């Protein structure tokens, strides 16, 4: 049994979801399941048309926060590996924002760990979205209470 791997990437560039899932899958022959989450920019938010989104983050803290979340997932579930890629910079509707992918022997662990990482990422990783509306106005996206509720489920 090789050591568990862990990868966290914060980047301007887009990513290739299929390639990342294949890499996770092919890493070990005792992997039976890969669960992944892809988040993308929606064209509407709180009733307004969004033309683009800018993602700011706290370099240094972001990577540590994501690694801490993944480490916690690994301590709670018997998973093989986990990957988090989060984009920063300016994005448009249909652009990919985030990928969380988890590999494990059996499906239950991968489902739980993947959703856990997303729920914690939403409340603990220092990213902030500012959206430019079609009206020309721009505004900071407000944090949602539902994200706090989602995170609470795991405690």
């Amino acid at each position, binding site marked *: 049994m090789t050591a568990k791997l862990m990868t966290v990437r914060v980047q301007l560039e887009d990513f290739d979801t299929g390639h990342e899932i294949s890499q996770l899958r092919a890493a070990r022959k005792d992997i039976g399941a890969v669960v992944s989450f892809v988040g993308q920019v929606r064209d509407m938010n709180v009733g307004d048309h969004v033309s683009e989104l800018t993602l700011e983050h*706290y370099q240094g803290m972001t990577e540590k926060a994501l690694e801490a979340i993944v480490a916690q997932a690994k301590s709670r579930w018997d998973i093989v590996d986990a990957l988090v890629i989060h984009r920063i910079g300016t994005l448009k509707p249909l652009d990919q924002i985030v990928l969380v992918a988890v590999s494990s022997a059996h499906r239950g662990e991968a489902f739980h760990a993947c959703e856990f990482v997303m729920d914690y990422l*939403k409340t*603990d990783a220092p990213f902030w979205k500012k959206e430019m509306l079609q009206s020309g106005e721009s505004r900071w996206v407000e944090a949602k209470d539902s994200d706090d509720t989602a995170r609470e489920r795991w405690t």
Partner: protein
Amino acid sequence: MNIKLLYFARLKETLKFSTEDLELAENEQWTVLKLKALLAKRGDTWAQMLMGKLKVRAAINHELVDDNAAISDGDEIAFFPPVTGG
């Protein structure tokens, strides 16, 4: 003692600061709350951003902390709104 301060998102934009170095009185016990109160004295905008209705989060050396967290010499302290990534 000397600390480094960082501001992000709405705070950075409104306060027009992204980072600053600050010297704090040596003979006192500094907490996040006490630091916020000190910064709030800089004016209405600062008071609104740090002690107003909008929630503000703090991190010390890259770890999320609450208002009671103690500050030490050399700490990097960041203030920002609740996060909205993912």
